[in-house]
C-alpha cells in the first residue's frame, strides 16, 4: 500500500455514477476520492468525510463540517442571559443538560454567585447530568451497533435511553431541549412522583447493562470489528486535545469531575473507568463502565436530596414564578398570575422587568467547564455589564474530537472509518453550533 498521492485519480464526489464507473474502468489509477456524506446514514448527522482510497484502504481522510451551523453563539448576544439556556440546550442535542449546566456555571461565575447556589439545585443538576450521561452513552453504543449492522444493539440502546428520557420528560416536561438548568439554579423543583421513577430505573438499569455487556463484551464479531481499530495513543490524544472517554480509553484517568470538581462532585463516591487499549473496543468498555458509575452517583443523589429551594435567594436573578408542567412543556403558575395581576403592583413591575429586561451581569469574562458525556465541554462567556451576553463561546468536545478522524483512519480500511467515527461519538449539533 502506498500513501504517496498519485497524479491520476478519479473523483467520485458526485455526478453521474455511470460516468464515474466508466472513468474508473478506463483509468489505470488506483486512487479514488470518495465523498462520504454530508447525508450518509453512518456519519452521525451532516458530517462530510472526504476519503481518498487506494483499493480498500484509506490513504487520506478529511473532514468537512459546517452543515448544521445555526449561529447559536451569535443569536445569544441578542437575548437575555436566562434565554441563553434555551439556545445552548439545542447545541449537542444528546447532552442538553451538560450544555445548560456549563453555560449556567459560567454565568454564575460572572455573577459571583457560585457559592450561593442552593444545595438541592446542585444535587438535581448532578442527578440530571448523570442520567444524561447514561442516555448519551446508550445512543453512542446504539448508533455504533446500527452502523456496523447490528440492529439488536440499536434497538436495545434506544430502549434503555427511553427510560432516561421518560424521567426527563417527567421532570422537565420535555424529552429533549429542556432549558431546565437556569442561571441561579434549576427552573423548577423535582416533582415528588419523579422519585419512584428514578428508583425504578436504579433497579432496572443494572439488568439492562448486564444484557448489553453479555451481548457485546465478548462477542467475536464485535471484537473483530473493534479491537485494534482506530488506535490512538495518549500522546496523540493530548496533541489533538482529546478528552472524555477517548482519553480515558488511552490510559489517562482524566476527569474534570475529579480534577476540578463543580456542582459538589467532590462529595460523591465514584471511580473513573480507564482502559489502555486506545482502540474502539476500549472506548466502548469505558463508556459502559461509566454508565455503571453514573448509576452509583444517581443513587447517591437520591440519598442527598434534602428539601430546600432550587433557585438562588436573590430576587434580582431568580425567576419570580414556580412554573408548572403543562402538556407541552412548561406551563403557567396560576398562583403567581393571581398575585401579580390582582395582588401586588410591585410584583407585577418586578415580573415585567425580569422577564423582558433580564438581570445584569457585571462586566468581565469567565470560563466554566463540565465533564460532559463526550469530554470537556467548556463555556467562555464575556459580559459588558448589560442584560445580554457580550460573547459566548462553547468548546464542544465533538468539535475537537473530529480532528482526530485523520489520525484514526488513515492507513486503515474503509470499513473501519465507520467504526472510528462512531467511537468518537460526534453530534453535529454541538460541532457546528
Amino acid at each position: 500500500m502506498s500513501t504517496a498521492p498519485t497524479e491520476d485519480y478519479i473523483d467520485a464526489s458526485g455526478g453521474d455514477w455511470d460516468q464515474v464507473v466508466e472513468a474508473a474502468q478506463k483509468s489505470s489509477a488506483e486512487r479514488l476520492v470518495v465523498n462520504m456524506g454530508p447525508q450518509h446514514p453512518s456519519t452521525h448527522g451532516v458530517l462530510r468525510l472526504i476519503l481518498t482510497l487506494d483499493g480498500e484502504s484509506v490513504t487520506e481522510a478529511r473532514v468537512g463540517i459546517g452543515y448544521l451551523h445555526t449561529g447559536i453563539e451569535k443569536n445569544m448576544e441578542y437575548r437575555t442571559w436566562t434565554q441563553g439556556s434555551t439556545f445552548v440546550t439545542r447545541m449537542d442535542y444528546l447532552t442538553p443538560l451538560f450544555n445548560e449546566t456549563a453555560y449556567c456555571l459560567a454565568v454564575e461565575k460572572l455573577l459571583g454567585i457560585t457559592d450561593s447556589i442552593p444545595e438541592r439545585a446542585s444535587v438535581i443538576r448532578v442527578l440530571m447530568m448523570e442520567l444524561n450521561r447514561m442516555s448519551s452513552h446508550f445512543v453512542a453504543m446504539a448508533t455504533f451497533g446500527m452502523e456496523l449492522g447490528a440492529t439488536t444493539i440499536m434497538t436495545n440502546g434506544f430502549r434503555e435511553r427511553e427510560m432516561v428520557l421518560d424521567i426527563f420528560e417527567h421532570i422537565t416536561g420535555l424529552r429533549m431541549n429542556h432549558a431546565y438548568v437556569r442561571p441561579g439554579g434549576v427552573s423548577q423543583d423535582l416533582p415528588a412522583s419523579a422519585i419512584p421513577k428514578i428508583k425504578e430505573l436504579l433497579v432496572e438499569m443494572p439488568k439492562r447493562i448486564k444484557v448489553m455487556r453479555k451481548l457485546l463484551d465478548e462477542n467475536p464479531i464485535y471484537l473483530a470489528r473493534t479491537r485494534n481499530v482506530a488506535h490512538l495513543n495518549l500522546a496523540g490524544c493530548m496533541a489533538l486535545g482529546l478528552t472524555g472517554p477517548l482519553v480515558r480509553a488511552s490510559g489517562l484517568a482524566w476527569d474534570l469531575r475529579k480534577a476540578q470538581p463543580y456542582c459538589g462532585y467532590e462529595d460523591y463516591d465514584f471511580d473513573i473507568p480507564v482502559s489502555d487499549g486506545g482502540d474502539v473496543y476500549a472506548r466502548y468498555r469505558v463508556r459502559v463502565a461509566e454508565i455503571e458509575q453514573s448509576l452509583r452517583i444517581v443513587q447517591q443523589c437520591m440519598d442527598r436530596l434534602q428539601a430546600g429551594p432550587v433557585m438562588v435567594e436573590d430576587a434580582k436573578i431568580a425567576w419570580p414564578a414556580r412554573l408548572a408542567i403543562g402538556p407541552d412543556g412548561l406551563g403557567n403558575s396560576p398562583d403567581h398570575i393571581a398575585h401579580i395581576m390582582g395582588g401586588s403592583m410591585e410584583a407585577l413591575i418586578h415580573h415585567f422587568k425580569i422577564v423582558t429586561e433580564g438581570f445584569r451581569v457585571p462586566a468581565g469574562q469567565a470560563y466554566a467547564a463540565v465533564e460532559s458525556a463526550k469530554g470537556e465541554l467548556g463555556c467562555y462567556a464575556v459580559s459588558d455589564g448589560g442584560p445580554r451576553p457580550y460573547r459566548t463561546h462553547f468548546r464542544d468536545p465533538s468539535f475537537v474530537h473530529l480532528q482526530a478522524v485523520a489520525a484514526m483512519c488513515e492507513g486503515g480500511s474503509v470499513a473501519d472509518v465507520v467504526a472510528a467515527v462512531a467511537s468518537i461519538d460526534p453530534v453535529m449539533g454541538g460541532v457546528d453550533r
Partner: protein
Amino acid sequence: MSTNEHEGKPNLNSEENAPARRGEERLTSPVRGTGLFGAQTTGDTSGYGGLVVRGTAPLGSERPYTDPDDPHTAFFDDVADKIEASLGATDVGYGDAVERVVVDRGEITFHVRREALLTLARRLRDDEALRFELCIGVTGVHYPSDTGRELHAVYEFRSITHNRKIRLEVACPDADPHIPSIVSAYPTNDWHEREAWDFFGIVFDGHPALTRIQMPDDWHGHPQRKDYPLGGIPVEYRGAKIPPPDERRSYA
C-alpha cells in the same frame, strides 16, 4: 509653608489630585454604550438620549496574584514566576511578552503581545515546570470600542500534570488582524483557529490551511463580529408583528 514650586497651579501628579486624575482616566476609557430607553431621535424627552456610558479602563492586577481566601488562585503567583523564569531562557523577555496580568473571578489572564505568543506557547508546552499539555482552544472576541486592539484572541490552557488552567489573551487591530498560529505547538488548535478566522477575520499566520470551517467557502464577511448584523425577519403571530431579535428594544 508649602515648598511646592508650582504653588497656585494644580499639580496633576500629586496624590491629593487623585480623584481628578481618575476623572481624566475615566474620559479616556472605552465607551460602552450611548443613550437609554432606545431613544435615538429628537422625540427624546427623557434627556437620557445623550447619555454616554463608559466601561472600565483596562487595568492590570498587581502582585501578589494569589488571594489567600480563594483556593482557586493558589497557584497564580507560582505560575507567573515559572513563566517569567521560562521566558528568561528564550530571547523574549517576560516584560516584552506579557503586557499585563488580570486576576478576576478566580481566573488568571495573561495579556500577551502577539509577537511573543508562539514562543510562550512552546514554553507552556515544553517546560517541565509549566507542562500545559492541553490547549482548550482559541476563540475570538470583537471589541469595536477598544481602538487599536479591536480583535482579541482568547486561549485557555490546561495542565494535567499540575491540574491548573490559565488564559492567554492576545489583541490585534482591525486594520492588521494578524496573530501567529500556534498549531505547530498545539495541533488541536487547527480547527479552533479556522473557526476564529471564519467568525472574526483574525488571520493566524503560519496556519497550515486557514480556510472557512463553519460558513460556506464563498461567504463574505465574518459573522460574529459586532459590526455584522444578525439579520432576521419579523414574525407575525395572530395579527401581531414581532420584530427580529436585533431590532427589539435593548435595555443595555
